[in-house]
């Protein structure tokens, strides 16, 4: 009970000194809880949407594409319309409706602007069925009638200011359909962002599926009292158990839809939790420092407790109890902040076009429990070592003149262990760069990263001594005696400086590592583009990667001033090598001009001959694996067509990123085995301008594709720029998430300084008494802060560049051949950390300056 009382008293007495530790716990817990609430809410939203919109039983063709797939020829797999009547006759069926829908469409307005989502949500065109009434209601106008009318969902209408009578164009593989909006229907559940247009059934069949008497699905509604499972059985019976169809109950259909969504959500969830984990790790340093300093400052007090009879265990426990209290307070606030954070995230997603409703906000009971547990456990773990140290305080400490706690020495054993770990990590990283297998290398990379990180943390105090001295030669000496005082202060407790710097090091190491990998990616790709790409222009759907509809391809072919245009499609096939091994492979079918567009090296044979009739090429790895030589015959069973016997005319080098391992055939060869309406659309198109007409051709291509806004024309410069932007965007997101860890680390610097100022009150008073001006005092604290921040930055950036370089050497096996260290980024980060140091010292320096000289001198201990 007394332990409890002293803990609570101490906690309350030092609440100011614990405030920043509490904030660190709060931030980390908030991030974890925010992530959980946000992903749970997204799950709820999709769950509701998919469950409500799914019929009791869905019948679809066996080979129907999954939600994530695109039909190669632009027309979804379908079943005959007669199946609807067949199903309708089954027992327990109230209603069976044919649904004709496609997600391989683009909807544009009269200004040729894409009406679809920019966030990856699909654009769906469908016929209007009674089933749609489950999740939608018509709010104005009426359901589409005839081929010239469409109905659009209310969210899309609102976003793009569409009204009844406005014209839309629906671009599908079968052609463009122009129609006027005749009605608007609103979702009765949250629609996270899909754009939906409804057509009249005949129009949907003809325009989306390319035939008048087919449907994509049969939607079955049960009579009342008939369970979904029973309905599924009776429908299966009515279809004679035909293996050509796939039957799903409402739950199965919703689950299948959710699985494709869930994978994405899981990736997001675990990535964000990973970043929260890093923030926790950084927070540990802050908490360790706080408790170490509290214990040091209380040495005399603890000595007194021991002198009057407290056991080590009691002292130890009283410190841990304080940690528990800190953990509880921080986590509770964190859980609340986490819910707020998730609402903020939802608002942010809404702003970029992904609608989520706070009505669906889902806080599972596990969320606060996880948050609280994590917060408390991490805090107590972090306080464990300082608590043990408190337990070791001798009763004699009560009698000693405490003054400032003795300088902590870094300790040679610790340094030895740290050096050993760092050396082992360095060796692992070196092995990584020499690895010739990616899997093996990545294990060494992970090991190397982990060991060097731990090693650096362990030798942090030792490094603090070396680095701070070096830094002070360069920076602090400029500031004369004030600089020297700052240097001494930063050095007086290397453990504290080491831990504070290490916290910053972790975040910055990741930043440096990723920036090296990212910029190496861009440099490698650019280098390869320069080396192997001969085409002037590339046409593709840069966003969703949809194939190019024939009418858009025709528009490209019609552009004047082009020396050639290359069609490029991708076919699925079962390929049997001469050694009898059969596997599913992809085949690249292109015009022979493709050889000029993307130059490939033939290791044997002649690539030009591979574009001859019934000829093909294979990649180096495949050839090696299956013992294929030029002149061998391959058996290629096209998925949508007949089986062909093709002769291998060339083996291409796999030392490339573009089309690595691709097997090439001429488009005409592919077309002779696949029916015209099953031929896939172009995945990409390439073009080369006539000599000297590059500019005109570029402009002409752009205007030719203006009607098809999802496809972009890029010249080589655009392409490189886009690549750079994409990598840059990805890095920015990661940096944004790492910002949390860096903020916690900066709080750590503030915390260390603030507690140091408290600890050095008497010293500050003395210095002020003998003539140190306020300005000099503040400068001294700022310089100390800058040196700590630069120390952390130097370690972090150095470590990160080492990781990044090792990672690049490893990824060189995968084609990341150019190492590019982004010096501007690295130097900017370094300079910014000096600013961060200044910023962190703001409050502590202000408070130190405001101290009353006399009171400071009179302060006890």
């Amino acid at each position, binding site marked *: 009970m007394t332990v409890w009382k002293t803990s609570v008293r101490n906690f309350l007495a030092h609440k100011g000194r614990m405030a920043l530790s509490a904030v660190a716990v709060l931030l980390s817990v908030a991030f974890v809880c925010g992530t959980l609430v946000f992903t749970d809410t997204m799950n709820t939203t999709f769950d509701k949407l998919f469950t409500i919109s799914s019929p009791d039983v869905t019948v679809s063709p066996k080979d129907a594409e999954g939600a994530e797939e695109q039909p190669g020829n632009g027309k979804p797999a379908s079943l005959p319309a007669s199946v609807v009547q067949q199903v309708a006759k089954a027992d327990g069926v109230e209603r069976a409706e044919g649904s004709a829908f496609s997600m391989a469409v683009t909807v544009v307005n009269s200004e040729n602007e894409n009406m679809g989502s920019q966030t990856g949500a699909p654009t769906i065109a469908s016929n209007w069925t009674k089933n749609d009434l489950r999740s939608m209601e018509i709010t104005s106008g009426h359901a589409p009638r005839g081929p010239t009318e469409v109905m659009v969902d209310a969210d899309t209408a609102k976003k793009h200011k569409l009204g009844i009578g406005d014209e839309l164009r629906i671009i599908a593989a079968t052609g463009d359909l122009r129609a006027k909006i005749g009605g608007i229907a609103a979702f009765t559940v949250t629609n996270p962002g899909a754009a939906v247009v409804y057509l009249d059934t005949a129009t949907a069949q003809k325009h989306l599926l390319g035939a008048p008497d087919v449907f994509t699905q049969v939607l079955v509604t049960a009579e009342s009292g008939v369970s979904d499972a029973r309905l599924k059985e009776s429908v299966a019976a009515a279809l004679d158990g035909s293996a050509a169809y796939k039957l799903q109950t409402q739950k199965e259909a919703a689950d299948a839809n959710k699985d494709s969504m869930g994978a994405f959500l899981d990736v997001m969830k675990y990535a964000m939790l990973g970043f929260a984990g890093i923030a926790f790790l950084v927070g540990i340093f802050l908490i360790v420092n706080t408790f170490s300093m509290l214990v040091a400052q209380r040495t005399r007090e603890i000595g007194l407790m021991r002198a009057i009879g407290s056991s080590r265990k009691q002292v130890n426990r009283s410190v841990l109890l304080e940690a528990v209290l800190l953990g509880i307070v921080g986590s509770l606030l964190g859980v609340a902040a986490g819910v707020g954070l998730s609402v903020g995230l939802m608002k942010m997603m809404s702003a970029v076009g992904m609608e989520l409703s706070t009505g669906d906000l889902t806080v599972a009971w596990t969320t606060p429990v996880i948050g609280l547990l994590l917060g408390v456990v991490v805090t107590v773990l972090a306080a464990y070592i300082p608590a043990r140290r408190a337990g070791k305080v001798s009763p004699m400490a009560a009698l000693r003149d405490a003054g400032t706690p003795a300088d902590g020495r870094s300790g040679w054993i610790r340094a030895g262990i740290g050096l050993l770990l760092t050396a082992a990590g360095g060796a692992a990283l070196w092995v990584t760069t020499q690895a010739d297998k990616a899997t093996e290398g990545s294990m060494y990379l992970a090991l190397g990263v982990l060991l060097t990180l731990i090693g650096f943390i362990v030798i942090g105090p030792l490094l603090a001594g070396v680095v701070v001295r070096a830094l002070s030669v360069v920076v602090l000496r400029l500031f004369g005696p004030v600089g020297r005082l700052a240097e001494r*202060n930063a050095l007086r407790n290397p453990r504290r400086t080491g831990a504070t710097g290490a916290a910053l090091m972790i975040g910055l190491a990741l930043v440096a590592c990723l920036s090296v990998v990212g910029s190496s990616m861009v440099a490698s790709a650019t280098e390869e583009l320069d080396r192997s790409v001969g085409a002037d222009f590339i046409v593709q759907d840069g966003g969703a990667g949809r194939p190019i509809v024939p009418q858009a391809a025709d528009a490209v072919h019609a552009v004047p001033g082009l020396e050639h245009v290359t069609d490029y499609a991708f076919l699925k096939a079962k390929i049997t090598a001469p050694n009898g091994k059969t596997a599913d492979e992809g085949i690249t079918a292109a015009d022979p001009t493709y050889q000029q567009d993307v130059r490939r090296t033939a290791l044997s044979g002649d690539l030009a001959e591979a574009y001859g009739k019934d000829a093909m090429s294979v990649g180096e790895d495949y050839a090696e694996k299956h013992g294929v030589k030029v002149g061998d015959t391959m058996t290629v069973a096209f998925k949508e067509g007949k089986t062909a016997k093709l002769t291998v005319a060339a083996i291409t080098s796999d030392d490339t990123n573009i089309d690595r391992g691709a097997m090439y055939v001429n488009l005409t060869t592919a077309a002779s085995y696949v029916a015209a309406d099953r031929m896939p659309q172009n995945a990409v198109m390439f073009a080369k301008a006539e000599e000297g007409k590059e500019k005109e051709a570029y402009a002409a291509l752009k205007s030719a594709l203006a009607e098809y806004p999802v496809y972009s024309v890029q010249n080589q410069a655009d392409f490189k720029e886009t690549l750079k932007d994409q990598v840059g965007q990805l890095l920015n997101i990661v940096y944004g998430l790492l910002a949390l860890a860096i903020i916690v680390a900066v709080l750590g610097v503030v915390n260390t300084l603030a507690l140091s100022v408290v600890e050095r009150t008497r*010293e500050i008073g003395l*210095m002020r008494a003998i003539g140190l001006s306020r300005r000099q005092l503040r400068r001294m604290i700022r310089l100390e802060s800058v040196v700590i921040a630069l120390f952390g930055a130097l370690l972090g950036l150095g470590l990160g560049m080492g990781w990044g370089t090792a990672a690049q050497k490893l990824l060189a096996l995968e084609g990341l051949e150019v190492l590019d260290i982004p010096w501007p980024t690295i130097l900017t980060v370094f300079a910014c950390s000096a600013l961060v140091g200044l910023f962190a010292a703001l409050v502590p320096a202000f408070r130190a300056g405001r101290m009353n000289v006399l009171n400071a001198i009179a302060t006890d201990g």
Partner: protein
Amino acid sequence: MTTAVTIPRHGGTGGRTAVAARARQVVKAYGTGETRVVALDHVDVDIARGQFTAIMGPSGSGKSTLMHCLAGLDTVTSGEIFLDETEITKLKDKKLTQLRRDRIGFIFQAFNLLPTLNAIENITLPMDIAGRKPDAGWLQQVVETVGLAERLKHRPTQLSGGQQQRVAVARALAARPEIIFGDEPTGNLDSRAGAEVLSFLRKSVDELGQTIVMVTHDPVAASYADRVLYLADGSIVDEMHHPTAEQVLDRMKNFDARGRTS
């Protein structure tokens, strides 16, 4: 008892006056209304240049407050304090800091030295802060007089209490301040170490012409001074020139007796 104290007036002899510091009608009060406590009650005092002055008095008499005010560490409620011809009661913090740095030396009872600096760095700190170069010859002389030549590279934690105080004295002397204030500089030392420090202070007055003001409650310490001022209830009630320890002790006993009977 209200013994009138004659305040010695030293005539101006051109240049520096013979008075190093003087206080006029200084009042220092804490709180307001009923809780108002007067620590200094219209104190007038002159500190003679080149003399060793001790301030004595029972606890709560205001002796430390008087020293803090004279040294520009504390502000006064009313009245004026001059250091030489500078009225320090009018100075803002910045000027006051400069004045402490350049013209005043301090020796505190404990915690005089920065633990991160070694002895010589501590000694030259005020000059370093001011951006001045210490006078090498003088520094040498000071260091030798305090007998620390062997220990200049030692950190405070490696020095004994007496040695630490001697470093503090050396620091106070090194910058050649107009006046050195000591706040019970031997309060934390045993009698031998205390005697060392005190003789050294005495020597710096006799040989170097230093002006020193020291607050103490130790009659033996006070006996090293040229002049002892007695404070009681915020007023100067008595003074004594060239005292011996016995005289001081008697005087103090008198206070104690009076304190008990009143």
